[in-house]
């Protein structure tokens, strides 16, 4: 098989690079005298590992400190504070998360990774957030890139990439526990222990259990959406030499999430179980050259009232970056992924082909050129990807970065990205009452002729630090979409008062999305820090030849709020108290479904009072959505939306 040979070549290359590096020993800087040190020429960190401020893309980084002080207990709730991301909670265990429009429970234009492992499902190209109830205390940062990231990360990174990066084992030594008890978080506890074996091997193991209560149904009573999750795992980092790091990590999870299925209101339970093992070896040849090889295996089982899915994914990625000439940094890489599934549909959902393996092979090359040192740089590159559905895909990008001085950064880019067809686009068979027309039943069948969805994005950004404590970040985008998915009626039959429609997927929508995002930070004084964000997003779609899916068009145009903002304050009080609030506001969202109501513009306020009793002991009281219970999202295709209640919890965090 071609793919197997590809893997062999990769491993071979890796061994060659490893072998050639063995002879290169860097001088021990620490042993040098001051006089010698002063004669050394240095590269600034921006060239090897760049700061977010110098990236030619719309980037937001959620730091560990922001995670701690947010009071949020899930990844999607943390993402609310990123302008340009649309986050709405559907029920107690389900969220709709997207970037720059198209928000839905089954959003499919966003790529999410945890430590380099992709967590979007090849089933429908979206994320099942209840499977990823991570231990938030061990997350180092969350990097969010809005806009296409296809050149580096490949298909699915159409409107954004989220990288969740956990701390290394060296940063999580000792024993730590955190427990939360509250109205919705009935109990949420996690423990971690980090230790060392000799000088060069550090490890940690962790376990987490969370029991979350039901929300309230907007029809009254219990929403039947409670959520229990167990998660455990570990990570080992081996500093093999001063410049080589080997990381092995893995997790296991089991989550039970109650699910009320719209529109009929059938109650059931979704069970998600799975685990993963990842190994990564990285080597730094010099300050300008490094290489990494990563392999992972991921197993995932979903047993729900509508589907039973078993999935095994194997992925290998290789990346090498070096400096062929001064002022020129080349990064290239190759990867291969095989995902094997066994699927059976239930309750009106069927799948063609009970078992299938999908293969994706890819190669990318990106060059960053310092056109004028410390002033103008150009980054161009492309990803080349072969998949089983739409064949060969090219995802190029060109980016310009201008840094006149420390206080101003300007960037602009043009890039193309695709959302390749998912298993469900080709093989699904859904029988359901129409969500938009009364007395109508639909039979939607996947299509092998459904092709990749495309975007060509034009972006611009400006970051500035007008005063030392103030940073402002502006981004503007115009997305030119083509071949978006539409569900077209092929034939329809009247049976007395009832109509049966036969439908399938086509690529008959096109259009533009445009908008802007603003983020601001202001460290007013030592004890007061303000932050804020605002975004505006608008999508206008039109039919291509023979296209007529007004539902998909209207959903894209009206179901994502056009405006949203948030304002956060972090206050350090005397005696080691902290008081933090975040106010969120999102615009109204229309809905074109018969059985759902419009979501009005609404505000949400999260508050936290923390007290660092001792260096290693922190207690806090948190209120989430304290203003009023409210619905944040309309009914999804299979899910009845709940009212998000006010929730309160107390938490104790103990280190060592």
């Amino acid at each position: 098989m071609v793919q197997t040979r590809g893997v062999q070549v990769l491993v071979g290359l890796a061994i060659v690079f490893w072998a050639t590096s063995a002879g290169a020993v860097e001088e021990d800087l620490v042993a040098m005298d001051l006089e010698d040190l002063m004669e050394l020429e240095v590269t600034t960190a921006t060239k090897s590992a760049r700061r977010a401020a110098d990236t030619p893309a719309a980037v937001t980084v959620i730091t560990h400190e922001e995670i701690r002080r947010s009071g949020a207990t899930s990844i999607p709730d943390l993402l609310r504070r990123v302008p340009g991301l649309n986050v709405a909670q559907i029920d107690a265990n389900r969220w709709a998360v997207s970037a720059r429009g198209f928000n839905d429970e089954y959003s499919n234009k966003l790529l999410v990774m945890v430590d380099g492992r992709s967590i979007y499902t090849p089933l429908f190209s979206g994320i099942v957030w209840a499977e990823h109830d991570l231990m938030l205390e061990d997350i180092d940062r969350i990097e969010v890139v809005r806009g296409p990231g296809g050149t580096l990360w490949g298909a699915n990174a159409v409107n954004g990439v989220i990288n969740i990066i956990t701390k290394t084992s060296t940063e999580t030594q000792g024993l730590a526990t955190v427990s939360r008890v509250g109205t919705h978080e009935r109990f949420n506890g996690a423990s971690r222990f980090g230790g060392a074996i000799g000088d060069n091997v550090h490890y940690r193991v962790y376990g987490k259990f969370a029991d979350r209560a039901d929300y309230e149904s907007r029809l009254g009573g219990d929403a039947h959406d409670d959520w229990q999750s167990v998660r455990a795992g570990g990570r080992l980092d081996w500093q093999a030499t001063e410049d080589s790091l080997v990381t092995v990590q893995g997790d296991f999870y089991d989550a039970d999430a109650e699910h009320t299925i719209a529109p009929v209101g059938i109650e059931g339970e979704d069970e998600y179980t799975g685990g993963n093992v990842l190994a990564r070896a990285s080597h730094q040849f010099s300050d300008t050259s490094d290489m990494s090889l990563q392999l992972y295996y991921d197993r995932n089982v979903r047993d729900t009232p509508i589907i039973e899915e078993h999935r095994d994914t194997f992925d290998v990625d290789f990346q090498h970056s070096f400096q062929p000439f001064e002022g020129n940094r080349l990064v290239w890489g190759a990867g291969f992924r095989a995902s094997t599934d066994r699927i059976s549909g239930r309750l009106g959902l069927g799948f063609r082909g009970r078992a299938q393996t999908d293969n994706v092979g890819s190669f990318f090359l990106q060059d960053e050129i310092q056109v004028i040192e410390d002033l103008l740089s150009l980054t161009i590159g492309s990803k080349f990807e072969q998949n089983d559905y739409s064949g060969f895909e090219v995802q190029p990008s060109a980016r310009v970065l201008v840094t006149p001085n420390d206080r101003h950064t300007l960037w602009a880019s043009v890039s193309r990205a695709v959302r390749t067809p998912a298993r469900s686009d080709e093989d699904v068979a859904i029988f359901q009452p129409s969500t938009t027309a009364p007395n109508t039943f639909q039979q939607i069948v996947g299509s092998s002729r459904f092709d990749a969805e495309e975007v060509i994005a034009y972006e611009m950004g400006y970051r500035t630090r007008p005063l030392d404590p103030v940073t402002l970040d502006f981004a503007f985008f115009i997305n030119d979409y083509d071949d978006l998915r539409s569900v077209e009626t092929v034939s329809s039959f009247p049976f007395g008062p009832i109509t049966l429609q036969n439908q399938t997927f086509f690529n008959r929508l096109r259009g533009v999305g445009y908008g802007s995002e603003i983020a601001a930070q202001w460290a007013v004084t030592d004890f007061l820090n303000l932050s804020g964000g605002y975004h505006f997003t608008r999508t206008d779609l039109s039919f291509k030849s023979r296209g007529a899916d007004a539902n998909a068009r209207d959903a894209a145009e009206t179901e994502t709020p056009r405006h949203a903002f948030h304002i956060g304050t972090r206050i350090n009080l005397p005696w080691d108290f902290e008081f933090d609030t975040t106010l969120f506001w999102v615009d109204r969202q229309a809905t074109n479904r018969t059985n759902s109501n419009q979501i009005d513009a609404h505000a949400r306020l999260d508050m936290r009072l923390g007290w660092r009793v001792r260096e290693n002991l922190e207690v806090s009281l948190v209120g989430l959505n304290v203003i009023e219970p409210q619905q944040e999202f309309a009914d999804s295709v299979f899910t009845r939306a709940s009212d998000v209640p006010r929730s309160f919890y107390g938490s104790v965090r103990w280190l060592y």
Partner: protein
Amino acid sequence: MTKLSTPLHRRLTLAFAAMLGLCSFAPESRAEYDEYKVKAAFLLNFAKLVTWPGDTPAGGKLVIGLLGDTEGTAVLTRALEGASLGGTPVEVRHLTSIDGSADCRIVFLARDGVVTPESLLAATRGGRVLTVSEMPGFASQGGMINFFPDGRKLRFEINPGAAEREGLKISSRLLALARVVEEGR
């Protein structure tokens, strides 16, 4: 589905051509070191050439606090972890706020630090802490040592008055290599 719109395609081709042109004019590369690996080495040298009152550090460790969550402080951590100075092991502490900064022997405030120089200096006053930064003007605002770039090389300035106030003695060798500054300049 691999069609590219022609203008974009043409633009990319032009960009590639421009890139090839630029590459051929690029000068040869020289040996360069990561800025923060070098700064780590500087920090250890500072510790060697500064005398604290009371001599041996409490707990038998040389505690270096890092303020700021940047790529630079990550490199510093890696470079300093496991290091020792004349038998005294170095302990690196990541400080998320000025709390705990007075318990360190040396505090390094990164360029994108979480606090302002003024608040760091207020928090360490009387704690006999060697304050080091890379923020322009740090030493003239009352900090002790500040890195600044000189072309591709690293230099540092020292405010001896600030060190004296905390009872720290800076060796003449260190002073000789530094640019000496006074407050308010």
